[in-house]
């Protein structure tokens, strides 16, 4: 036991670790959550502008959301939200012992990646004014 404890790597070489898809999706759950947290002030500000009663708040909302850099950030947040949402449902299902087996877990991780990217594309095109 003590022998094993000694050999345990103290510092993981992150670039050498090859994660399975479920591990990759799991890390993205954390990344997307962190991104949503960091940009929360932007989202609350947009909510404030969208619900403001004055003409200036309406103009400001249009100007901010019309900015291409803001659009790009919102596109990223859109993906972050959908990934976090889908991954959250996957976690809840695994909590109640649905899809715990290795193959099912791999398939559901793949589903999370594909569905969240597809939803980002659908809503992202709307955001960018494609339709």
């Amino acid at each position, binding site marked *: 036991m003590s022998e094993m404890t000694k050999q345990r790597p103290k510092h993981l070489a992150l670039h050498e670790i090859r994660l399975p898809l479920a591990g990759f999706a799991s890390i993205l759950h954390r990344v997307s*959550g962190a991104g949503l947290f960091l940009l*929360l002030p932007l989202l609350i500000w947009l*909510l404030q502008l*969208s*619900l403001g*009663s004055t003409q200036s708040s309406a103009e400001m909302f249009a100007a901010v959301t019309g900015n291409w850099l803001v659009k790009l950030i919102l596109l990223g947040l859109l993906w972050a939200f959908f990934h976090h949402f889908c991954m959250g449902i996957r976690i809840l299902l695994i909590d109640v012992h649905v899809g715990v087996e290795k193959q099912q877990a791999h398939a559901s991780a793949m589903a999370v990646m594909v569905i969240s990217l597809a939803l980002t594309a659908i809503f992202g095109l709307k955001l960018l004014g494609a339709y």
Partner: protein
Amino acid sequence: MQRLVVGAGYGLKDWLAQRVTGVVMAVFALIIFAAALGGAMSSREAWQAFMANGFIRFLSFLFIVSLCWHAWVGVRDIWMDYLNSAALRLFLHVMTLLALVGYAGWAIQIIWRL
């Protein structure tokens, strides 16, 4: 002295809180999505009328509280996992908590002013 830092007892509570707040937010997101399909975002006026509805304001409040609670548990986990310096960790825990409490007040004031 070597200490084993376990048994604070908050683990299960946080785990449950993360699930409950997550479900609250997911349900709210689906309601907003359904409302948008129903035209709640078709114009600025429609959006404001929708958000001013008493029941929606009640749900929005729950959403904001859930979001901040959920973010607190999640972000704190990130600091705990990656930071070795207790001083830095404490500092960021406090900053995260203060930011989230402030965000909650700001967002609640926006929806309850309607």
